[in-house]
């Protein structure tokens, strides 16, 4: 805090009168005048000592951190070197094994090409044809669309043909329900025919032939019997005028020829009966009758104990399997080596990571200390400047007073410090 000029004047005046002048002693150290000492001993400059002490402590702390960093840096470097050495060792093993694997794969490929060129198709390499027991995930793929299309085509053609030849009776005698039932019956009979026909192809049996014959007979009945009956036993409709007549005895809309057999009437109302009979027959044939055991199959099984001769295919398969096994073993060895390498390197890696972490922490702390020191030094500089300024004011007043006192000025020669801040720092014990 700068005091008034009077204050510095008073200090200087007193010093001049008391002959208290600053000077350098024989040892070269600067001796302050009383006034200067009074300025420097002002409480505002006490903080300088404290600040400097704090800086000193921080410097000490910083040096400790630096030593710690060195302590971590050296082992981490050695661990890194060790890891690199280990990596090299394992990697060379892995590289050697990979070369072996490559050779084996080349050998297998070459072998396959040779066999292919010789005309030996290896079973595993054939294009994917569906095996009988192979399950298809997609139900859509399970359907044999060719067969389904042919079935529907046949059904449609038969329907058209049947409708054509039965048109006259259909118009008058059949309702929508009856037409649909008839159509469905035909489809069912065709389906059964198709199924049993296929079964017969696989395994010829008399009962299948009988069913096929009966089925064809039923289909023919469905198609040709109604128009035939319509021709033999027609349905006649009456005129509407006579229907309203009050004088005729029988005023009915429809007159029918007398003597229609009951079976004709029954069949006309139940055209699905042939389909029903076919269905029952089908159930018996398809599900009821078991497949007989073929005696030839049994005799073949009993002759099995004979030793099988190896075919070319078997030999090829053996060779391939051998190569594949070796390839698999090589791959496993590579995998094992890699695992060993990883397990060996893991502790080092962990240590290095820990050390690096600590180094980072120390570095951060050092940076914080540096910042604090800088802050403190700034404060010290500010205080020093203030002290210098006050001392300069005191010097100005002192020189003025001395100049105005010719007696004193003749024998008093004050020595002013060359670099006042260093002397001030010395005074406060601040090491330069």
């Amino acid at each position, binding site marked *: 805090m700068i005091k008034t000029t009077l204050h510095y004047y008073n200090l200087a005046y007193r010093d001049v009168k008391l002959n208290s002048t600053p000077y350098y002693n024989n040892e070269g150290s600067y001796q302050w005048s009383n006034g200067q000492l009074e300025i420097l001993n002002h409480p505002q400059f006490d903080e300088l000592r404290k600040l400097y002490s704090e800086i000193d402590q921080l410097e000490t702390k910083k040096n400790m951190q630096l030593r710690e960093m060195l302590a971590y840096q050296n082992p981490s470097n050695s661990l890194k070197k060790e890891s690199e050495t280990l990596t090299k060792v394992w990697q060379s093993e892995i590289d050697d094994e990979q070369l072996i694997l490559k050779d084996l794969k080349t050998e297998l490929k070459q072998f396959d090409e040779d066999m292919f060129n010789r005309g030996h198709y290896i079973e595993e390499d054939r294009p994917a044809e569906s095996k009988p027991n192979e399950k298809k995930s997609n139900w859509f793929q399970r359907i044999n669309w060719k067969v389904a299309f042919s079935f529907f085509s046949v059904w449609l053609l038969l329907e058209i043909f049947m409708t054509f030849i039965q048109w006259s009776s259909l118009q008058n005698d059949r309702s929508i329900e009856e037409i649909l039932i008839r159509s469905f019956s035909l489809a069912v009979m065709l389906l059964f025919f198709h199924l049993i026909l296929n079964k017969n192809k696989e395994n010829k049996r008399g009962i299948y032939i009988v069913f096929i014959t009966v089925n064809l007979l039923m289909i023919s009945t469905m198609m040709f019997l109604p128009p035939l009956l319509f021709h033999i036993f027609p349905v006649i409709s009456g005129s509407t005028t006579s229907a309203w007549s*009050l004088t005729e005895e029988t005023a009915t809309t429809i007159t029918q020829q007398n003597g229609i057999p009951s079976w004709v009437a029954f069949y006309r109302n139940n055209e699905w009966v042939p389909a029903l009979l076919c269905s029952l027959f089908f159930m018996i044939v398809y599900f009821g009758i078991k497949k007989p055991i073929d005696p030839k199959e049994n005799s073949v099984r009993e002759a099995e104990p004979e030793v099988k001769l190896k075919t070319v295919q078997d030999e090829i398969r053996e060779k391939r399997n051998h190569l594949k096994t070796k390839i698999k073993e090589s791959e496993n060895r590579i995998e094992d080596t890699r695992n060993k390498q990883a397990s060996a390197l893991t502790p080092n890696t962990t240590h290095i990571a820990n050390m690096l972490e600590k180094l980072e922490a120390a570095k951060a702390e050092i940076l914080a200390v540096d910042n604090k020191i800088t802050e403190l030094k700034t404060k010290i500089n500010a205080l020093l400047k203030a002290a210098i300024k006050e001392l300069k004011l005191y010097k100005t007043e002192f020189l003025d007073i001395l100049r105005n006192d010719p007696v004193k000025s003749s024998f008093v020669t004050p020595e002013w410090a060359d670099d006042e801040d260093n002397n001030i720092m010395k005074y406060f014990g601040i090491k330069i």
Partner: protein
Amino acid sequence: MKKQITILGLALAIAFTLSSCNSLIECDSISQRQATFLIDVSDKKLFADIENDLNTNFPVFMQKSGLGNISPCQSFSLGFGQLSSKEELNITSATISISRKGQSKKKEWEQASPAPLVRLMKQKLSDYKQLADEPQVTAGSNICNVLLKAINQSNPDTENYFFIFSDMVENNAQLNLYKGIPDKKNASQVIEKIIEPSVLQKFSGLQKSGIQAKVIIVMKTEPNGKTNQRVVKDFWIAVFGELKLDVVFIDNLSNHVEL
């Protein structure tokens, strides 16, 4: 096992499909048509004339008019009532209908056969023939009130046709056209006189609700020549006009009628 389940599933699917085809077979609603024949039995000669007309012209009339012709989801009812000295309404009816679609023609013809209606008609004509001989019945005739009663009890949702076979010479305690035919200008007063108030009220209500009713009067000549047919006709035209009834006068069923 899988095949059996597959076949069973297929059968169920088809059954379900068929059952959902109800819209092709079932009728959403059945439109109805009703014809009521009110036959005057108050005079023997008159009834004989009517009977002859029916025997001769009824079949052709039904064929030409198409009144009794029904299609799938349609029904036709034919009812018979008598007009006599008794004021009561007594209607006997029979119905033919085709209640499903998609049937064979043969089935539709069977269901549309008018045989039950014809049987009923024959029976009623036979009954009325006997009634026409009874003095209690022939003592007078109530026409308009009975007609309105018949209209009141008909179904407002159907097409209703009322055929009156009569000479239209009303003869009862409220009105005796033999004694004198009221002025056409007094039609409203006559209506209040000859028709019961409750009947008239209900009839008015039905008219407001929009009942479909057409009246065809097969007007015969008074057998004894005691009245002027034209004057009688004019009178009834005025009365039915006052009642806002759709009325057509014909001589017999051989006449063309727009239904």
